[in-house]
């Protein structure tokens, strides 16, 4: 079943890309929320977490009204010749937005567990804030960030509601979840089952990796 395989490959690639896209803002937000007190903190936290509680279709609708050719961001991007709706970019955006809250929450817990004293010591030894972040905070929070990335990636893999609103179910943008919907919708049970098998295998692999990471990190830390 070449179609099933190409859809699976595309989904994994898009989810990986979405994870890369959400990492910089996600880690920054996680660090900010863990280490700084600032005005509008609650608002930032709420906005990031919104996709977690909103129905995914509603998130898709919000993204569509922002990024559609008639939306403010969509119009701006269109002016630069960049289409979002119904392209692979839409898939990545939908996945990244849906995965971000999981990344931020997990990474934030990671940063909160870093002993503040190490950061302060680094600062007294003359390290600037950036250097402290990259050589002390980030490595010590690494496991949390990594776990968050794997969670965000897994969420991205299974994303359906926002994707089908923003990216449609075109042959060129179809992900595993959307394909399963289309196949069941058209009574192609065999294809749906095949897709289901592939999806379960990938999810199994992702969980295996994340568990492996967790134990590896544990050994590394206790040694």
């Amino acid at each position, binding site marked *: 079943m070449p179609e099933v395989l190409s859809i699976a*490959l595309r989904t*994994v690639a898009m989810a*990986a890309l979405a994870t890369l896209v959400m990492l910089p803002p996600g880690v920054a937000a996680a660090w900010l929320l863990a280490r700084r007190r600032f005005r509008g903190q609650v608002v930032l936290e709420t906005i990031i977490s919104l996709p977690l509680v909103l129905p995914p279709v509603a998130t898709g609708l919000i993204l*569509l009204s922002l990024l559609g050719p008639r939306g403010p961001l969509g119009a701006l991007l269109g002016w630069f010749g960049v289409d979002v709706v*119904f392209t692979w970019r839409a898939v990545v955006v939908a996945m990244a937005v849906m995965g971000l809250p999981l990344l931020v929450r997990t990474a934030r817990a990671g940063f909160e567990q870093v002993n503040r004293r190490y950061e302060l010591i680094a600062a007294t030894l003359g390290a600037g804030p950036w250097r402290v972040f990259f050589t002390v905070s980030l490595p010590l929070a690494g496991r949390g960030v990594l776990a968050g990335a794997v969670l965000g990636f897994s969420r991205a893999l299974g994303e359906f509601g926002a994707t089908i609103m923003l990216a*449609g179910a*075109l042959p*060129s943008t179809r992900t595993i979840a959307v394909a399963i919907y289309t196949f069941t*919708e058209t009574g192609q049970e065999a294809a749906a089952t095949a897709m289901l098998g592939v999806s379960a295998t990938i999810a199994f692999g992702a969980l295996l990796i994340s568990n492996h*990471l967790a134990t590896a990190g544990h050994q590394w830390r206790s040694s």
Partner: protein
Amino acid sequence: MVRSISILLAVSVAACAPSGESRGSASDGRPLLVSAAASLTGVLETLTAAYEQDTGTRIELNTAASSALALQIIAGAPVDLFISADLFQMDRVEDEGLLRTQTRVDLFGNQLVIVVPVMPAVPVVPADPAAMLASAATLLQPGFRRIAIGDPDGVPVGVYARSYLESVGLWDLLRERIVPTRNTRAALATVESGAVDAGVVYRTDALSSNGVRMVFEVPVADGPAIAYPAALTRQGSNPAAAERLLAYLQGPAARRVFEQAGFIVPEARP
């Protein structure tokens, strides 16, 4: 471990690159974008594949619930041709002034039918596989404990089913037994599984399934008018090609395919 993850990411991103730019921003050479109700995926895949082969026109089919498709078009999605499973969603797009005038047409119709599981838990209808219900009122028999229909508050097939049951005075009597589902496929699957004793679905769905038996066909004259409207949208990039495709979908070859799937195709237009 960090390295193994980054290798994995690098490989997958590399794999994604060639599939990337399938819808560029240039308007020429762009495939025709057809947004169609999910229930039409099968027939339209057959027809567009044939059309692509005959004419060399490339077509991309975007299939979802008609309500989602309408929202996408209203948000500005560059759809060339919209085929809706119900009139209301097409009306919404038309009311926004997004259809090309004079292109809207009802492609074909459908019919409501009552189906029962092939192997019902409680045999509520005569075992004879050819037996039909005398009328929809047979559903009042106590054996029909649960009846699946599309959600009557918005899913087209459910709205139609309620409007029919209301018109024959059965809605209030059956109300307690109704199991709303999210679309016609879900209603069909619920009947197939035997979780309900009967269901009201489209004739086309009943014909596509081996797990259900049609026991009553709502006469077209008695039931609500079920039509699938199609129209060109204003934001399509290639109206001439879209118009040719729409004409093809009304032509004899397409009519045969629609008829075979169980749709009710109107008499040929002059």
